[in-house]
């Protein structure tokens, strides 16, 4: 596709519910990133994939967060047993490996945990 596509755009989850957020990167982009943006803050790094390999998951806040990219294209960020502090916009970004122009971000998924 022309850009990075994320779904759903909005998700309301009850506390304790599991959620799955999807990211379709730009076709052919090797690198894929997930960021979390809390209200009034800048995006914070969660995890990085190069093709299907998860090379960095140092930003995942707890073991309730899990990300995968099994075929090196679409990625899913899963949050188990959601808590109120998980409420944020989750941004996905992709880029070619040697891009000097930063990533292309999707529009994000706004997760609200009630």
């Amino acid at each position, binding site marked *: 596709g022309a850009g990075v596509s994320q779904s759903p755009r909005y998700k309301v989850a009850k506390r304790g519910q599991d959620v799955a957020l999807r990211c379709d990167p730009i076709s052919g982009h090797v*690198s894929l990133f997930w960021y979390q943006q809390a209200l009034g803050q800048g995006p914070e790094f969660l995890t990085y994939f190069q093709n299907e390999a998860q090379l960095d998951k140092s930003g995942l806040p707890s073991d309730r967060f899990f990300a995968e990219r099994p075929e090196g294209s679409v990625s899913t960020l899963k949050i188990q047993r959601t808590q109120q502090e998980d409420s944020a916009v989750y941004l996905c*970004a992709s880029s070619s490996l040697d891009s000097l122009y*930063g990533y292309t*971000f*999707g*529009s994000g998924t706004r997760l609200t945990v009630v």
Partner: protein
Amino acid sequence: DQQVKQNSPSLSVQEGRISILNCDYTNSMFDYFLWYKKYPAEGPTFLISISSIKDKNEDGRFTVFLNKSAKHLSLHIVPSQPGDSAVYFCAASGKKSSGDKLTFGTGTRLAVRP
């Protein structure tokens, strides 16, 4: 510990005048800096970048200045236009490629008055 700081949460400028957005960083390992622009309900979009080997990079109305000794960078927009009204994020990376996580500031909301 906020490694990238944008101390001005908001800025208001008259159309046609210069907008100057500032950013400070603390990590001396950062060697690549980027500015992103974000409209409501959209993901951040790449605006301009600068490598640590340079002190200035210009692209049309946008110029980024880097002062490594002061660990400070700034984005100049001249002339400012109403369509420039958005939140601007400063970001930093440890290497000049896309395969590294970005550390973002908290953003500055720019309002350009007609």
